């Protein structure tokens, strides 16, 4: 078993942006923080934020309007979810599965806990939607 100590910073920033979009903190089609402002907020090199924004542009999650700034793409949501899913399956799930195996936790127990968790955490919110 091996796992990555941590993700490349530019990917962490890309995930942060996606998280903001998923949480609707950064609405679709809205202007997002400039490279410099996000770099200052995150205390990272602006070149690293540039790399994260380039990456998100390639994935058509954000778009650069020259001289105006960066915006969330109108139809970004599906691609945000696809990207986050990919990251989850690649990074978080293996660690989870390893513990499951080592501690001999049956899939049924996880399933039960998963349902309970969703009930307690998201049920009310889902009804509101």
């Amino acid at each position: 078993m091996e796992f990555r100590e941590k993700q490349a910073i530019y990917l962490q920033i890309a995930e942060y942006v996606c998280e903001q979009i998923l949480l609707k903190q950064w609405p679709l089609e809205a202007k997002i923080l400039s490279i410099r402002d996000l770099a200052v907020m995150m205390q990272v090199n602006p070149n690293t934020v540039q790399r994260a924004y380039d990456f998100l542009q390639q994935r058509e999650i954000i778009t650069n309007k020259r001289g105006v700034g960066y915006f969330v793409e109108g139809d970004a949501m599906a691609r945000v979810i696809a990207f986050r899913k990919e990251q989850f399956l690649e990074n978080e799930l293996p660690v989870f599965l390893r513990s499951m195996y080592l501690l001999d936790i049956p899939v049924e127990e996880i399933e039960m806990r998963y349902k309970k968790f969703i009930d307690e955490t998201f049920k009310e919110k889902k009804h509101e939607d």
Partner: protein
Amino acid sequence: MIQFNNLSFGYSPKKLLYKNLTLEIQSGSIYGLLGKNGAGKSTLLKNMVGTLFPVEGSVMVNGMVPKTRKPSFLQTIYYIAEDVYVPALTIKQYKNLFAPFYPLFDSDNFYRYLTELEVSVDGKLNKLSFGQQKKFVIAFALACNTRVLLMDEPTNGLDIPSKSQFRKLIASVMNEDRIIFISTHQIRDLENMIDNVIIVDDGKLLLHASVADIADKVCFKTVSEIPAGVKVLYSEKMLRGTAVVMENIDGDDSGLNLEQLFNGVTENPAMAKQIFSTN
């Protein structure tokens, strides 16, 4: 751009510290210079600013020769030494005396930086604590808007909130015309700020690579068994297994651990050279 062309330097002519150092530093980047005590980090900075001269070879800073110390050169570079010195002056007196040497000095930003770093002084600067003096000098240096900013251990003496303010300030002043060159042992303070790493040891340049390049060539992992058949630059027992820095054969995109990279490169310079010279 800063160019070292076959630079040799020694404090005594018989014993050279640097021999035939060739290195090119590009604008628009924040460089981290890492090396052990006595490796020659400060010496390199002093050669760039013109307080020490090469014995052979040359240094060029944006096409100018530091050694000649022309005002046209000096107004484009600022060097913050590890141990800062401030005279018995008030902030205003200091500014009035030294700011005129820097044509791009921005007075509004100067006071803003002082506020952000929480430096407030009514009296003379030399009455301040070491940390406060250091923050004062950092604020002044940033306000000078020089194209080159050299800093020797800038986070030494800074308290915990100031370190984070310092990172924010650096992120806010960085632009594509600027070179920020930081020599430090406090790697963790600046790990996410640096986008180019230079490692020197014993007067030799062991590594000069961008962060993207490093992530491309090596990966940082925790493993239960050290893999066979790949170049492992560094390994260290940790709580969750063995942390390794190894050749990146699977095209991983892992985050950097500069401390481990530094240990690996200084312990295994030959292997580091092999790993980083492949394309």
